[in-house]
């Protein structure tokens, strides 16, 4: 793989690494408390298993992106592609689930009797929204990365002679 094929991949990986790192940081530092009727509510990302899953997947993606920068592309290109596809699947699933829970927190579900919580803990909601935006950027970047790697691997495999 020559330099013109390899440089965009490195750039995309660095951007994805930075955005997942930012998403993790924003989610982990999100907490807010509200006083209702003398009791204090604490809203942290720990309270929801979906947001915990999002944080775990973001950390895994950051570490993996860092490690995949140092892999020789000619020898292990296809294996990195398979791992990229698996990680992309994880990223998309965690982002989708977190957005679902976020929508539940913002608008509630009247049929189940779940009231929205964003009115009482707005700072927490804003942090989570920002973290999800960073996660969305990572999802798009990883998708482009996998498509681009597919193109490169196709050139490597089919026209080896």
């Amino acid at each position: 793989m020559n330099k013109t094929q390899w440089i965009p991949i490195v750039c995309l990986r660095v951007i994805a690494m930075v955005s997942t790192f930012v998403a993790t940081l924003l989610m982990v530092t999100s907490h807010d408390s509200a006083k209702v009727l003398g009791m204090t509510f604490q809203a942290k990302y720990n309270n929801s298993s979906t947001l915990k899953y999002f944080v775990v997947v973001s950390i895994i993606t950051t570490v993996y992106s860092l490690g995949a920068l140092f892999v020789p592309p000619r020898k292990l290109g296809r294996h990195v592609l398979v791992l990229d596809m698996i990680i992309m699947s994880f990223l998309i699933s965690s982002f989708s689930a977190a957005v679902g829970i976020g929508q539940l927190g913002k608008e509630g579900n009247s049929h189940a009797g779940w009231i929205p919580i964003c009115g009482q803990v707005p700072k927490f909601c804003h942090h989570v929204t920002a973290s999800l935006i960073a996660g969305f950027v990572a999802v798009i970047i990883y998708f482009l990365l996998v498509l681009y790697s597919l193109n490169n691997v196709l050139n490597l495999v089919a026209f080896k002679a």
Partner: protein
Amino acid sequence: MIIMAGEKVADGRSIRRWRVTISMVVILLRVLALFATAAATIVMALNKEKHTFAVATIGNTPVKIAITAKFQHTPANVMFVIANGVATLHSLFMLSMLCFVRDKYDFKGLRFLTAAALDMVTIAVVSGAATAVAFMGEVARNGNSHARWNKVCDNFERYCDQGSGAMLASYIGILFLMLVNMLNIFEYGRLINPSSNNPLAA
């Protein structure tokens, strides 16, 4: 010379057998993925349960309220139905392309890229929908005490169980789609170059 000619003949036959095996396996996996995603769509779309609660008592007669749980009440379930419907149509389209249009249309070298890219898009969409339903179901089953959200599944057992069954079918469909995608990517070199002697390894 004789040894080299012998190797060439054996290579051609074994490579042809390998091509046929891989094609059969890919078709079988696509059919399984089609059935799994179709089952997930239908099971979730027919998910509805009615439950009658006795709320208060006026005199001697209890006041009853009937509450229906439909799948449309949760946006994650709506996305799940739509995503699995799209995956079913995608599998149908790919199967028809494999079986009926095999050599009649010139794809100008883009056949592999379209198949792999479309497969990946389908996997992404379906995995997003399935995980969203999984976490919504977790909140419905266990509630969330910090947000004061009560659990719903103790009153609507059948609704929750049907939803989890659909989600399981969707995950199995994702597994089959991923296997098909990886097979396509890794065996493409051997599939399109049947007359080459050197094996396209690593």
